[in-house]
Structures are given as structure tokens and as C-alpha cells.
């Protein structure tokens, strides 16, 4: 097989064949040609490839930090030692006994990891409140609609809304079930049409960008 075939044509053929198997298996049950088991195995294989890709991502992250340490990147290399040391600690502890079940592994997740992850996510609360005061200016009809619907939904979500006036949750619920639903439904329908169109282009090999360098 020429390297051009392996490099260019084979991936496009694979995309087409695997995609068609998945689509056809949805509509047709053909046990005599092992279509159902093949479709099942393909889904599982694709999941495993995604898992290997995750490992690849973690290895790439490690290489980046090792490079920082080797090059003594100013203001970064000592942090990179921390990253690698803790990743290694988590992996070593994770391999004790059955993978990922040791109490120390769960401890590392439950205390340091959860504390840091939730705290860093919670910083957005400050930025939202600050932006509400400094940036959320009603300069147009669109902005006014956005602010008004946002306020009604907030007063629906918070019990204080119902305590102030029973109408707040009613209007908030209407905002959620009518304009909000309609707006996002329009997005969903549009996105579905777009996704189907792009998907067909990918299956027919028209979207070269889905593969890496060739």
C-alpha cells in the first residue's frame, strides 16, 4: 500500500465506512452480517480510542511541564515541579490495590481536589456580581429584555421572590417555559440542521480539517 493511500485515502474511507455502519444499524437489524454486534463493537472501540486520546493529552501536559523544568522557565518551572509531583502522587496512590479505590486516593479527591476545584469555580460569583454593577448597562431594547427576563428568573429561583410577591415565580416560570424555551428551541433546531449537514460532509470526506496533519 502506498503511503499516500495510508495517509490520505484510508482515513477518509474509514470515516465513511464506520459512519455508514452506525447510521444503517439504527434503521436496519441484520444479524446475518453481524451488523448489530459490529456497530456495538465500533462504539466501544471509539470510546477506547477517546480514552487513549485522554492519556495522550495527559502525557502531552507532562511533557510541557518537563520542558519548563529543563529550560528553567522564569516564574513557572517550580510550579511545574508541583504539578508533576502531585500528578505522580495521585497516580501512585491510584495504583494501590484495585485501580482508584484506595482510601488515600479518595481522600486526595475529597479534600484537596474538591476544595480547590469548587473554590476556583466559585470565583465567578464575584465576577458576576461585580459585572452586574459595573458592566450590565441597559443601552438598548435587547439589553432591557435580557435584564428583565434575568431578574424574573432570579426571583423565581430564589425563595425570597415568592415571599416578596407571589407573581414573581409565576412570571419567571412563564419566561422559562415560553420565550426561553422558544429561543433555545430555535437554536436546537438550527444546530441540528447544521450538525447533520456538517456530519454528512465529514462522512463524505469533504471536511479535511477533522483529521490532523497529513
Amino acid at each position: 500500500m502506498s503511503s499516500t493511500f495510508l495517509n490520505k485515502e484510508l482515513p477518509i474511507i474509514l470515516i465513511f465506512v464506520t459512519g455508514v455502519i452506525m447510521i444503517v444499524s439504527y434503521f436496519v437489524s441484520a444479524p446475518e452480517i453481524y451488523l448489530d454486534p459490529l456497530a456495538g463493537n465500533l462504539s466501544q472501540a471509539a470510546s477506547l480510542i477517546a480514552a487513549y486520546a485522554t492519556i495522550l493529552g495527559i502525557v502531552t501536559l507532562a511533557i510541557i511541564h518537563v520542558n519548563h523544568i529543563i529550560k528553567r522557565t522564569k516564574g513557572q518551572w517550580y510550579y511545574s515541579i508541583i504539578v508533576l509531583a502531585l500528578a505522580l502522587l495521585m497516580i501512585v496512590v491510584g495504583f494501590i490495590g484495585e485501580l482508584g479505590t484506595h482510601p488515600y486516593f479518595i481522600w486526595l479527591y475529597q479534600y484537596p481536589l474538591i476544595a480547590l476545584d469548587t473554590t476556583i469555580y466559585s470565583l465567578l460569583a464575584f465576577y458576576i456580581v461585580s459585572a452586574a454593577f459595573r458592566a450590565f448597562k441597559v443601552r438598548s431594547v435587547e439589553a432591557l429584555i435580557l435584564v428583565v427576563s434575568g431578574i424574573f428568573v432570579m426571583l423565581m429561583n430564589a425563595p425570597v421572590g415568592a415571599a416578596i410577591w407571589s407573581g414573581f415565580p409565576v412570571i419567571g416560570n412563564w419566561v422559562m417555559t415560553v420565550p426561553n424555551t422558544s429561543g433555545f428551541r430555535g437554536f436546537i433546531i438550527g444546530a441540528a440542521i447544521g450538525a447533520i449537514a456538517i456530519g454528512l460532509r465529514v462522512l463524505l470526506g469533504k471536511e479535511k480539517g477533522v483529521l490532523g496533519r497529513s
Partner: protein
Amino acid sequence: MAISTDPSVWVAALLTIMAYTIIYKDNPLYKLAEHILVGLSAGYLFIQTWKMIYNSSLLPLFNGSGLLFGGITLVLGVLLFTKFSKKYFWLSNISIAVLVGTATGLTVRGYLFAQLIEQVKASIKVVTALQPLDIFNSVLSLIMVVCTLAYFLFTFEQKGALGWIAKFGRYTMMAAFGAAYGGTVMTRLTIFIQRMQYLLFTWLGLA
């Protein structure tokens, strides 16, 4: 007031305070907290992902229960790592092709039924058996969906009747974004409140 004597709680509380120092200004303590999180997260995800690979791909290969499947998935997985080679990087496209083709086939059929057909059906459903307000809401909803879709019609110039329809669609989307903003505020405040509860109650024992 009974401050916690549990070292685990102290670890979590001190790391929380370290991360919160960014509120005042950017500083090395926050950067340290960030990098601790990156390290722990990477290690954790490695273990969970390796567990899946070992159980579903390698173990069947080693114990003979799934030689073909285990062998093929191992080869496809290892081919991904050729990305690091200047000469053989293109081999990884074979694995990516299997993943992309399978996922695309699944999403194309999934989007068609679950998201296109079902949502169009829901848009044109007019409630006839219930209150006049429900009928009004159904009709209004249908109009809003059509107007939202019309906003994204760039094939024709948006003027005249189409201009008004697209404008109403834009207003509908603004209402949807406002609702999303309201939900975002709840989510972010929730996470902050939970950290406050941890510091005030679990760590400092104030209640």
C-alpha cells in the same frame, strides 16, 4: 464555637483560603493553588481512564476473552502516540478516522430524531384541551421559534417583513439569554455559598 480538629478539614480550608487570595489581587499563593489542582486533576483522570483501558482493552487481550477486539483497540490506541514522531505522525489519522466516523454516524442519526424531528413536533403542537392561556402560550411559542429561526436566515436581506420577524426573533433570544443569565447567577452563587458554609461551619464550627 468549636474549630475543627480534623486535619483533612484544615487542609481543605487552607487550600480554599489560598485560592480566594486572588480576590484581593493575583499572587503566588493563588498560582500555587492552581497548579496543585492541575496536578491532582491530571493524576486522577489518568487513573480513571487507565482503568477503562485496562479493563476493556488490555485485560481481554491478556486473558484471551477478547483477543481480536483487545488487539485492534490497543493498536488503534498506540497509533495515536505516533503524533510525537515527525516521520510517522500521519498514522494517528487512522485512529482519529475511526473515532470521528463512529461519532459522526451516531450524532447525525441522533440529531435527526432527538433534536430536529422531536423539537419541530413540539413547536407545532397546539394545546387544544386546556386553558385559553395554554393555547395562547403554544401559539406564541410557535411564532417565537419561527422568528428565532428567521433571524439566522442570511440568504435574504433582512428588511421589510423579514426584518421585523428577525427582530422579534432577536428579542426572543435576548429573553432566553436573560433566563440563562439568571440560572448562571444561581449556579455561581451556589458554589460560593457552599465554600462559605464549609469555612464557617465545617472548619470554624460557628453553628
